[in-house]
């Protein structure tokens, strides 16, 4: 997962792909561009680990990550 901050508001998926030069197979299009904090105009995208380095800050767009995407499980029954 990568977090980007875009002061001008929610970018479209195509804008994100174009901005970072991401191919369709490098970004999870079904995940999309998910707003996680409207106060800071922060959005999360899901990219292949090999493409994470393409997502760099530039201009007024900030970028942070990659963040871990661990498996989560229900806590019961015990294993």
């Amino acid at each position, binding site marked *: 997962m990568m977090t980007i901050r875009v002061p001008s508001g929610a970018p479209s998926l195509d804008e994100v792909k174009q901005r970072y030069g991401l191919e369709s197979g490098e970004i999870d299009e079904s995940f999309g561009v998910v707003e*996680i*904090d*409207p106060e800071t105009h922060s959005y999360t995208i899901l990219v292949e680990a090999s493409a994470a380095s393409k997502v760099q800050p530039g201009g007024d767009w900030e970028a942070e990550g990659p963040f*871990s995407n*661990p498996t*989560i*499980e229900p806590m*019961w029954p015990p294993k």
Partner: protein
Amino acid sequence: MAKHSVLIEVSPAADSRYGAVAGASANAAEIAANISGIAVDPSFGVIDIPATRPSVSAVFNAGDIDEAFDQPTRYVMRGDIEIEDTERIEAENPGVRIYSDPEIEVCPICPGSGPLGNAGTVASLLGRTALQGAGMTGRNVLLAIVDTGLNINYLRSKGVVAPFDGTRSWVPRPGLTPGALPVGHGTMCAYDATIAAPRATLLDVALLLSNRPGGTVMEGLLSDAVLAYRHLVNVMRAPRRPGELRSMVVNNSWGMFHKSWDYPVGHHGNYSHNPNHPFNVIVRTLAVNGADIFFAAGNCGRDCPDGRCQGITNAGITGANSSPYVTTVAGVDVTKTRVGYSTSGPGTLYPRKPDIAAYTHFAGSGVYAADGGTSAACPVAAGVVAAFRSRFHYNPANPVTSPAAVRSLVSRLAEDRGSVGFDFDYGFGIINGRRMAAVSSLAVEEPFQVSSLPRAEIEAYDNEMAANARAYAARPEPAESERAVGVGA
């Protein structure tokens, strides 16, 4: 050298020196005077163990039938010795035997234990009657079960009457029908949440039915949780009719079991300790939008942890389960004793965790032998707050109705257990529906003027959390060697 508590057994018949020890009149101090190296505890006294008639088999198996009957009265005292002196004392004092006197505790409930009590017991302990008497049933409150999916038909067969809202539910992929998913963990959680909130409106958020690569039938990835929470934020922010109040309680009985699934602490991409992780950020966003979010503390307790904890029981409560914006719930059985698998604090995102405890490991939904784990404790607590919210809806215009304010209230009204005040096993104590119902009766005339909810404290809390996030971002990255750990896809 350290002294150890022991039991001292004296058989007078074996040594004429102890002939003076006679039943209840035996004097522990006199015995101590005769045995060097033992400090007898006079408060324990002398317990006589009467001679017993041997069993028939003992008689016939004994080499000497007279010996089999030769079991004199023995006397037991308590004292302290240095363990290294044990052999010397026994050698120098024929008829004296030293036995260990270990500390004992009540055996805690563990994962394999049978259920204790049932849903009716829990309802009584929660004060459901009092809640209902105060109009707290969960009516018009959304109760989102973020889990493996719900099976409404099964819940109906178990007497659950709570309405279900499929249109505001969420599934991770096409082809899944909310409310008609396999009976499992999520259905158990929904059942337990409706114990205190029988009229809450259930939402099925089937996060843990991921189809992403690497997933199994009953697990997901944290990125799915980001999507699920985005959906819940949208529900909370959807247009309202004038005057409409909207409350949502969100139950999360899931988590990340082991740090090997994560980037190391200090790494910018870490989840467990990092307030800036996208999921931890969106949890805050949902809370800021008025949702009361509950997370299970975890099942990595020191006495009998889940195997998935890989033996790590001192890592505390991690990730969003320890968020300052959620209520973290530990587990107690119906005797109000912490269950042995309930993870203890502190939390990694906010240290004073868990916040509260709630009941678990009882016969409830019938999905499992016991509705157990902090998995069950969490919705039990969430249900109480859903019930409360039906009288005290979230109002964006009134800070004292915020999730932080309600969490503060719930903590203050909890029944203290463990150490006085907050502790890392029970938090502030066991959630108490009766006290919450009483708050309602006191506040009927001015329903949003609960005076015990301090705005300044809430604002200071928010500022502290923002400072924590900045501090984490400023931490130095861990050494390269520490980064070579497994990380989810």
